[in-house]
């Protein structure tokens, strides 16, 4: 919210330095987010009236004006603007003036015509960044008056007011806070706070007392609707509010000054007695913004005998609003239930300056004061005659309950001793009164505007704000904490990530929210209230997210995409959360040119190798899956962990790639605790001997089967079997059709002695023979 420093100054003496004030407020929890200088204070710039304007004889774009600068002598000015008419009042820079950017004004001749000064635009006076044409002043502006009197210098603070401090949403309220923080008295101009000789009388019905505890109306007759005087207009415009007419401007002014919204009805358009009630279901309401709203039964309205004339605390009605023809006014000032105003403003999506304040709880003490203040201003400015009495209904909410505070509690929570005297003094500054005092604790009466002070810790915060957090010492207190389940999960995932990165994969992190397009592919938990088509559901798997990343990188010209993501996916319908690992491999094994690069594409075995290296012993089984042309399941310990395979051609076409892409996704949860502790095995002391077997086999004979055949021999000396060569298919044109060559290295070893050549030869021959006999392979020498 914006605050004018000049306005604040009316209520409290401010520190000489505004930087100091901004720092003080920020460090007290009222954050100053921006500081802006305003106003136009220039010597030799005055209000002038254009008396006549003629075309420049030698220049199409220029005019020659005769102006009255209040000196009694007409002055001739050459002017390039077109947005004025004779009798308009405009700023005139006299010779000697220095404007924005150091522009010096002196008498001159423009295309042969003498000009004794310059008529100014808003930007030439620093009142706006850019402007088009002259600044047209109010007709009330006094000719010859210095321009600074119309646009006094001011500083505007942009302040973040936290939602618990509705009492700060006015200049008076912020000034009250400053007075407590700096220890300066608060000035209360009598005109504002005087409730005068106002008699209160009853005469309104409140049918919804919970939503509207209190309302007041004041009749104000004989108003003259017109433009606001310059000072009023300048004040509300400096707050970023557009000037409408004197009555509306006064209402806004009072809201910004005192924090209490008021609403002016055209009294002659109200029919019969007023009632504050809940709306009827579907009740139509034409609001001041020209739109019709359909109300619900929990919306609070002000109604006359025929219709709703205002949505309480949110917006008035168009039919009963103030217009140019309004003669008499009924001025409403009320205290509405914050939750009710909030609900209605939200459901109608109709936030207003008034609802913002009502939602955050207006000061009950200010309701009638604001009504009086507005009535007085209407008398002064609009020649109105306020009725001597205010009609009210209901009860203003009672002040907050007393809060008791143990002095020790202050020390404990802040972490440093604060003397009881200091505690008392601080609380008194904020307007709290000691209801009862004791050595260990005291009880405090809370002022009506501080509804946020409800319990002891709230008072501790007030003390901390004045004590200064910078003055609290720093303490270092550690505690021994056992490892948690989440620690184990984190460490497992970290090591998984490290392994994958070590194998050259890049970690990605995609959004857990996926697009409308993505959920066309697979069922997912959808959001009830998505904001746009990009985020409509929670990801069910890494398929779409990782494919999107692949597509984006292929489009960006990548040669190799080897990525993984580790994170949560959400299983429909309940959104059960699982931890998955997703992997995509695509493109060349070694991207880019390198003098020793291996030129081949990434394939299924690269994917399988990655999975085996991070998941330990897993097996792969063929399966069918619609999105994959080659699909395999990944199993470990009788559990299906996930799938691995090759993306279908439709996907690849969509990505725009001719390379094959490989995708895998696994549930890692079963592996988190499966990770076995390494167990020591005796290091072999005697040498091993390796013998090879090379064979021609039918193309459809699986490696798995060959190994199984070798192992079922149960030869105790055989320590390991490694496949070291496969040759077949297109590469092997001189082989018999349907054959491939496979070569294995068999390692023999005994734990207790060195083996002899003869005994290895015997065992090796037995295995060779078994392969021939059982698989019919053709052994090669």
């Amino acid at each position: 919210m914006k605050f004018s420093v000049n306005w604040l100054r009316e209520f409290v003496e401010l520190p000489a330095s505004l930087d100091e004030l901004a720092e003080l407020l920020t460090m007290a929890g009222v954050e100053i987010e921006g500081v802006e200088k305003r106003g136009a204070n220039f010597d030799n710039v005055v209000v002038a009236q254009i008396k006549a304007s003629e075309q420049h004889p030698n220049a199409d774009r220029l005019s020659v004006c005769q102006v009255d600068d209040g000196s009694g002598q007409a002055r001739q000015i050459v002017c390039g603007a077109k947005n004025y008419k004779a009798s308009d009042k405009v700023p005139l820079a006299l010779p000697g003036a220095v404007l924005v950017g150091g522009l010096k004004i002196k008498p001159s001749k423009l295309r042969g015509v003498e000009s004794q000064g310059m008529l100014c635009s808003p930007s030439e006076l620093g009142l706006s960044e850019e402007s088009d044409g002259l600044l047209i002043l109010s007709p009330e502006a006094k000719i010859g008056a210095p321009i600074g009197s119309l646009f006094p210098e001011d500083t505007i603070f942009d302040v973040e007011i936290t939602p618990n401090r509705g009492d700060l949403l006015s200049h008076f309220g912020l000034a009250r806070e400053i007075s407590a923080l700096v220890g300066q008295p608060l000035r209360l101009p009598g005109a504002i706070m005087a409730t005068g000789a106002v008699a209160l009388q009853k005469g309104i019905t409140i049918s919804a007392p919970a939503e509207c505890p209190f309302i007041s109306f004041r009749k104000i007759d004989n108003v003259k609707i017109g433009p606001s005087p310059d000072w009023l207009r300048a004040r509300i415009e400096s707050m970023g509010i557009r000037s409408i007419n004197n009555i509306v401007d006064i209402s806004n002014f009072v809201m910004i000054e005192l924090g209490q919204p008021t609403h002016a009805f055209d009294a002659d358009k109200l029919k019969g007695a007023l009632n504050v009630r809940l709306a009827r279901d579907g009740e139509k309401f034409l609001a001041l913004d020209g739109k019709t709203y359909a109300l619900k039964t929990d919306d609070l309205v002000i109604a006359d005998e025929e219709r709703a004339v205002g949505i309480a605390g949110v917006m008035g009605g168009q039919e009963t609003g103030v217009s140019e023809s309004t003669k008499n006014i009924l001025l409403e000032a009320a205290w509405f239930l914050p939750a009710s105003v909030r609900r209605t403003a939200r459901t109608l999506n109709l936030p207003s300056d008034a609802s913002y304040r009502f939602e955050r709880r207006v000061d009950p003490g200010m309701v009638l004061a604001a009504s009086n203040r507005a009535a007085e201003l209407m008398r002064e400015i609009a020649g109105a005659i306020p009725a001597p009495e205010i009609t009210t209904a209901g009860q203003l909410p009672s002040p907050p309950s007393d809060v008791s505070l143990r002095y020790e509690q202050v020390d404990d929570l802040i972490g440093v001793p604060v003397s009881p005297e200091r505690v008392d003094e601080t609380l008194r500054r904020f307007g709290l009164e000691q209801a009862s005092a004791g050595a260990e604790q005291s009880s405090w009466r809370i002022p009506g505007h501080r509804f946020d002070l409800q319990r002891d810790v709230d008072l501790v915060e007030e003390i901390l704000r004045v004590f200064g957090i910078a003055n609290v010492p720093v303490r270092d207190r550690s505690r021994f904490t056992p490892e948690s389940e989440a620690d184990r999960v984190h460490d497992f995932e970290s090591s998984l990530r490290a392994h994958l990165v070590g194998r050259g994969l890049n970690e990605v992190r995609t959004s857990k929210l996926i697009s409308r397009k993505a959920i066309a592919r697979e069922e997912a938990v959808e959001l009830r209230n998505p904001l746009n088509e990009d985020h409509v559901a929670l990801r069910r798997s890494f398929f779409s997210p990782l494919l999107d990343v692949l597509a984006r990188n292929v489009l960006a010209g990548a040669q190799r995409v080897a990525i993984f993501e580790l994170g949560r996916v959400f299983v429909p319908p309940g959104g059960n959360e699982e931890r998955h690992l997703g992997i995509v491999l695509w493109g060349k094994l070694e991207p880019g040119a390198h003098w020793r690069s291996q030129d081949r594409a990434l394939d299924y075995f690269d994917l399988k190798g990655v999975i085996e290296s991070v998941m330990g012993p897993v097996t792969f089984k063929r399966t069918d899956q619609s999105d994959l042309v080659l699909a395999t399941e990944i199993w470990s310990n009788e559990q299906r962990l996930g799938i691995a395979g090759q993306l279908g051609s439709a996907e690849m076409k969509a990505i725009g790639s001719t390379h094959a892409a490989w995708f895998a996704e696994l549930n890692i949860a079963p592996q988190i605790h499966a990770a076995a502790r390494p167990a020591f095995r005796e290091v072999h002391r005697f040498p091993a001997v390796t013998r090879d077997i090379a064979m021609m086999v039918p193309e459809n004979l699986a490696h798995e089967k060959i190994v199984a055949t070798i192992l079922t021999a149960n030869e105790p000396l055989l320590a390991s079997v490694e496949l070291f060569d496969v040759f077949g298919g297109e590469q092997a044109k001189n082989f018999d059709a349907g054959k491939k060559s496979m070569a294995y290295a068999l390692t023999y070893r005994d734990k207790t002695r060195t083996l002899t050549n003869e005994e290895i030869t015997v065992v090796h021959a037995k295995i060779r023979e078994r392969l021939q006999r059982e698989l019919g392979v053709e052994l090669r020498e």
Partner: protein
Amino acid sequence: MPHELEQLRDAALAEVNAASDEQALEAARVRYLGRAGSVSAWAERMKSLSKEEKPVVGKLLNEARTSVTAAIAERVERLRGEKEARELANIDISLPGTAAEAGSLHPLTQMLDRSISIFRRMGFALAEGPDVETEWHCFDALNTAPDHPARNEQDTFYLPDGRLLRTHTSTVQIRTMETAPPPIRIIAPGAAYRRDEVDATHSAQFHQIEGLYIDEKVSVADLKGTLEFFMRELFGAETQIRFRPHYFPFTEPSLEVDVKSKALRGGEQWLEMCGCGMVHPAVYEQVNRARGDNAYDPEKWSGFAFGLGMDRLAMILFGIPDIRYFAANDLRFLRQFA
């Protein structure tokens, strides 16, 4: 005058030592020590020598053989060494290395890991909770009743069944207290969601680290100590830190933490880093009600909580100008963090 054999030996040694490559050396070996070599020929001649001559010549022959063989071995070694040295000298060491391309951890993972390791050194254990939460865990238990001005349903994603995507990781405070009695000393890294237009500094899903410490007589001084240590570990010992009062429904007093450091955008301005505060007694009351006991007696226990935005931290620390880089996962971006 030396014996003929001695002359032969010296000639052989000279030839061996003059051999410029292994081929020449082999030729010399064959010429002298080969089956038909001139030294070997003396072995034949031995048979016809007299008894007196035999031992003399035998000794000379042996000596000649040994010394020539040794010379050949030495020469071979030397020639090989020289050859290798020549080859090594010819290697172009300016050729690029052949290490396989390394992968990379996502910058947010790096940011999280770094932060987690700092808190672990202070004795915090990890904790977690679900992304899909109940309204109670996300709002009510955190002292944000339905009509509370800070409870903004407009900015919250809901599921059709009325559950929501947590708007902050503070839900893990509640999850942890529900199941474990005090003392508590945890951090909870995780995702949070905001129903807001996406721009350079806002994304629909972002990352936080939540912290919670509940113990006897925990105070603002402990909160300051913990977060100041964290910020200085992260941004350097010179980092300036200030705490400002703020407002959150679930802490009282509530604070915001700003830091200023040369390492951060030149240290020109205060940068907002973290929201924190002393856990509000109303939160303990809600938790106790859910637990059905008085484990979190506000008279006995007090504590602090904080929430750190990881995306923003990473952006500031790495100088990343737009939050959307994180979810786009362009490899040209990711590889910068290898």
